[in-house]
């Protein structure tokens, strides 16, 4: 499990608990890294758990941090809400070193968080979790009518889409006109 420290982006988290040593072959101590989201709460996560995230795994490999350096430089994910990052970290810990099952019952059930979770997981490139999340998104509309789906997934009507498109075109036209005027001003 991750250890969490409220409101301290650079505070040193608790020391990792050392795994009991086997009598036959001493295990290589696991390395830990630190991540924080928008709320600056630092999560301590093992390298094994972070392997799920292609993004973080790539960063770790490239940086080659020592334990001390990792502690001092938590990976900042300012675009991810703290509670969402917590969910992601929990999932990574639960599935550390295990093959991911075809159905994941540990997935957060809060639908209101699902959308943010999909975006975060997509950003962090956690393929298996993304698969589960998208499945969950699809299940939200299972057996629903088109009207209900439109409501659940906030799908604009054709008229709303047309209006938005017109508005976007208008805005783009104005911006282009503004740029032309600015360029003409510069030329003078």
């Amino acid at each position: 499990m991750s250890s969490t420290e409220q409101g301290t982006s650079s505070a040193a988290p608790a020391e990792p608990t050392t795994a009991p040593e086997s009598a036959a072959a001493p295990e290589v101590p696991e390395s830990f890294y630190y991540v924080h989201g928008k709320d600056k709460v630092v999560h301590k996560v093992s390298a094994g758990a972070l392997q799920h995230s292609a993004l973080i795994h790539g960063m770790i490999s490239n940086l080659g941090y020592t334990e001390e350096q990792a502690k001092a430089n938590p990976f900042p994910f300012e675009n991810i809400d703290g509670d969402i990052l917590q969910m992601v970290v929990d999932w990574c810990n639960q599935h550390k070193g295990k093959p991911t099952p075809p159905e994941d019952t540990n997935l957060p059930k809060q639908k209101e968080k699902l959308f943010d979770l999909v975006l975060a997981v997509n950003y962090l490139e956690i393929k298996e979790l993304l698969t589960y999340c998208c499945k969950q998104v699809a299940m939200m509309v299972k057996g629903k009518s088109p009207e209900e789906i439109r409501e659940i997934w906030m799908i604009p009507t054709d008229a709303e889409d047309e209006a938005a498109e017109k508005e976007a075109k208008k805005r783009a036209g104005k911006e282009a006109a503004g740029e032309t005027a600015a360029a003409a001003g510069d030329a003078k």
Partner: protein
Amino acid sequence: MPIRLLSLPGKDLQYALDCMDIRDLVAFSLCSERTKNLVKSSNRKIEPIAAYVYEDYIYFDLKTENDYDSTNDYISLYVFDSYFEFSGSLEIEEWRKEEFTQNDWIAHFLNIFNDPMIGYLGILNTSLSYLDTIKQLFPKCSRLAISDMFSRAFAKIAFWKLYSIAEKVEIYKNICDDKNDTSKLLTLSLKSLYLVDFVNPLKLNLDDLLILNITDVTIHFANISVKELNRFLKLWMQGNRTFYRPEVISLCLENGTQLNYEEVLKGIKYENVKNYYRDFTLFRLKRRDGKELNVFIADNEFTFRVV
């Protein structure tokens, strides 16, 4: 709590659509023009669409392609003009699109599943006056089937009105009243004809087999003499007809007829080919130009198959 699905990154959205069953995809496609296009671009593979025409509604079967794992991912719809009905989990559900006609529903289903045409069109219970409407609704289909629910006269009119919309036709009434009708039917340029009428066998002779222009023909029951079958095979062996379109001719003769292979193959050189999958013997005929033919003869069945 709703989520803004259309703001998801394209790949995630695609994956979410991949997780949906056919029923939910159809529902989603009806939300807006944009969702319709998303379903289309999700490229869901389904079995060729089957449609069964009744006078006041059309019954559609939409089924996931190769549903071998028995997930039973399918939806059966009763399409009227501005709405369709289907069996939901608890009750009959009805989805509407006020501006839609049956024509629009057909176009919608074909469009979202990227199908160029209806795979199987069954004509089940309609009036004569409705046949023109059917032709308008389904200008093309892969296989047309005219049921045995109609009278022979009706089936004949329906066939001649509709056969041109399909490459393959099934008809469950013998629609030939005379030699002229038979010639007209057999010279059609169809890929396949399946004519089944156990009450009124189709009378055939050597000339009918020689003028045949359909690639794959099955006729149950047919009425033709052993002598004429023998003559037909002899002519084929002589290679008089260098271009002969039929590749399969399968005839089931009237009940009680027993075909003797020695009589059918009298005077023709052949070899026995053991079929290891079924307990019967095939006869292989080889022409001088190298063309080969498998002939199956048993009880009242005769099958001619170009190898």
